[in-house]
């Protein structure tokens, strides 16, 4: 057994760190330092920088433009990006539909879509949830009627994050309303956002930033060649997509960065004539959270080591999203607590509080979404109860 990254991996980490420091444009670096929310254009500019380096899609195979990294390198890269505060690239193309197309897509789809995803020339969003199909995704209602050479889409998707910027959306749509089980009769379809009949309404998060949208489809035509996989096999596609990169969902770097921020706030905040960091109660509280994060990191390392050997994700990987998101929230809760009255600030009031604290309240608010999106933690627990613990269904 060996718990440490190899010398090669550590050298890689240094390379990544150095690269980020050198490549991140000054304006982005300033925002990164404050953990400010990046504009979409800024994210895409960083995407294109990484793409030039060949690092935009760490988990794509080499023949499609990936860097050919192992699981450990992918983890290190992801952690370093998170630690640096640099923009995190939109996952919908790179981490979701891209790998699915690589696995199940037609040659046409591969040629048409992959290069532009990789280069950051086309932006994607995800059309899964609907107003009445959230946790119960299989109840989705968006209809895709077969009209010979095309599908005709009618219905609504919600939580279509960054749809306002997207060139394409991938949707789960009902292609057979008469299937016995809800999960059957669903297809995975790629749709151009500029299609006639497609409208998008973005709305604000509680963090005060734009992320989610609602997207309506009214007689939207989609060519047949935009079906991924077989007709009515969309559920299988969706499950395959979920299986990608399950070792990166803990957000270790995000939490580590937030925790370091907490310590620095505690260092720079006075209370009772001493640094808050030197208040034994505060120090113990910060330490307790860091201990939890370190524990999760170890679980994550186990998962990576398994992936390195090509093993299927073990039980330890199923806890990463669950505890990872809880710890991310706890880190921002802690920052808020340490900020005291400064935690009342809002991001559109620069100068009110130190730069380091400026975006914390926004993140604190929006961070509540972490335990909701990508399968709420309640749904995660249902799955673990059934699949790992083998507990009986209700």
């Amino acid at each position: 057994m060996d718990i440490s990254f190899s010398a090669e991996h550590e050298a890689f980490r240094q390379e990544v760190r150095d690269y980020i420091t050198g490549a991140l444009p000054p304006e982005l670096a300033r925002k990164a330092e404050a953990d400010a929310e990046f504009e979409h254009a800024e994210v895409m500019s960083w995407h294109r920088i990484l793409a030039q380096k060949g690092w935009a899609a760490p988990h794509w195979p080499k023949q499609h433009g990936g860097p050919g990294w192992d699981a450990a390198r992918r983890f290190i890269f992801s952690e370093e990006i998170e630690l640096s505060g640099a923009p995190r690239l939109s996952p919908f193309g790179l981490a979701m539909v891209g790998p699915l197309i690589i696995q199940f897509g037609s040659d046409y789809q591969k040629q048409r879509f992959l290069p532009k995803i990789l280069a950051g020339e086309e932006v994607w969003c995800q059309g899964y949830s609907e107003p009445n199909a959230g946790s119960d995704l299989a109840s989705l209602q968006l209809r895709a009627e077969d009209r010979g050479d095309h599908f005709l889409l009618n219905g609504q998707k919600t939580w279509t994050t960054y749809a306002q910027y997207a060139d394409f959306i991938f949707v789960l749509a009902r292609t057979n309303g008469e299937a016995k089980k809800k999960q059957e009769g669903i297809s995975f379809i790629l749709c151009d956002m500029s299609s006639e009949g497609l409208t998008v309404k973005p709305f604000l998060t509680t963090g005060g930033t734009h992320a989610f949208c609602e997207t309506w489809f009214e007689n939207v035509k989609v060519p047949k060649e935009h079906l991924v996989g077989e007709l009515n096999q969309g559920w299988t596609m969706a499950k395959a997509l979920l299986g990608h990169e399950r070792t990166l969902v803990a957000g270790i770097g995000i939490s580590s960065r937030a925790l370091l921020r907490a310590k620095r706030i505690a260092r720079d905040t006075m209370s009772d004539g001493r640094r808050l960091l030197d208040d034994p109660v505060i120090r113990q509280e910060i330490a307790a959270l860091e201990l939890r994060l370190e524990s999760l990191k170890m679980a994550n390392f186990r998962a990576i080591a398994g992936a390195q050997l090509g093993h299927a994700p073990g039980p330890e990987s199923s806890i990463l999203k669950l505890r990872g998101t809880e710890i991310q929230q706890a880190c921002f809760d802690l920052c808020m607590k340490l900020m005291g009255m400064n935690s009342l600030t809002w991001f559109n009031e620069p100068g009110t509080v130190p730069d380091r604290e400026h975006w914390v309240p926004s993140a604190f608010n929006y961070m509540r979404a972490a335990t909701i999106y990508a399968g709420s933690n309640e749904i995660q627990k249902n799955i673990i109860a059934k699949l790992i613990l083998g507990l009986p269904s209700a």
Partner: protein
Amino acid sequence: MDFELSEDQRLLVDSVQSFVKKDSPIERMRRLRDHEVGWEKSTWKQMAELGWLGVLFPESVGGSQLSFVEVGLIIEQLGTTLVPEPITALVTAGVPLWKLGNAEQHERYLSPALGGDTSLALAYLERDGRFDARQIATRAEKTASGYRLSGSKRWVQNGHAADHLVVSARTSGGPGDSDGVSLFLLDAGQPGLRRTTVKQMDGKKSAMLELEGVEVGAERLLGEPGAALPALELALDYGAAATCTEGAGVMQTVLMMTRNYLTERRQFGVPIGSFQALQHRAVDMFVETELAKSTAILAMLDVEAEDAAVRQRSISIAKAQLAESGGFVVRQGTQLHGGIGVTDEHDVGLYFKRMHVLSTLFGDAHFHTRRFASLPSFTRNVA
């Protein structure tokens, strides 16, 4: 022991409930958070006419001097729709003004506020002070005709809109000393006073103050020089009690909002409120709400206790419980709403934000737990 409301109190609660329903539903707060001031003078006047602003203060200054219970009941109901008018600021600035001020000061500064014609603010927080009213660096130097104030104050609730401000400054001693803290009355337009309006996370506004050699006459001093700390700490406990009652209103609202959502929202062919894990979470929200409501009553009653140690103990219990219970209730309320809970469009986020502010104002859980543990009562029978 009696927790029943009197007939008058019940009528008061009814009238506030009908006000929030008719005149200030949550949509009003939502609209006003983008407003420069964040609240409306007409509504303030209406509240004064309804007799809500003076309940704590003596008839001699235009109040009805009932008790803080009435104030608490009003604020609890106003909390259910996050009514933005600055009643808590009136209480915290008004209490030291009432306790330390002379008749002339009462007439000039307190009575107009109780009549709804002006509003007040208490400026006591500084950068390195955290929640401790003694940790102030602002100085008030004696001049021939009065005092010259220099320093800065932060996060002055309603400081952006107040006509008059009660400001703490040292006439002697250094940061951390109990003696030497004085309170002064400033006008909003006082030369040398610079106010910067800040939009808070909860949509309310407050002010950062710079006092650049503000010259005031001796008649602006409240009470004896250097002896204001007890009244100031009393004022902060009144403020804490107010946040506890407002928090009770917030929690009860989020609890019912969540309960209704669980009942109406369907997934997997059934209301999600039929899932046991969610039911039990809702029950925990209910339990925490009941605990916080219970300690809010403790705060309302004991804030007026004669013995400061009794008052501080009860206020710290209630304020620490508010933070714990309130934090839990709004977090779980958000979680149980799922995706819509983290959109700005849904109301639960407004309550989430306000609850964080309430937990922080006048001392967070860490501050109050420590204060509780430093009182003699903590080691009674242990020494």
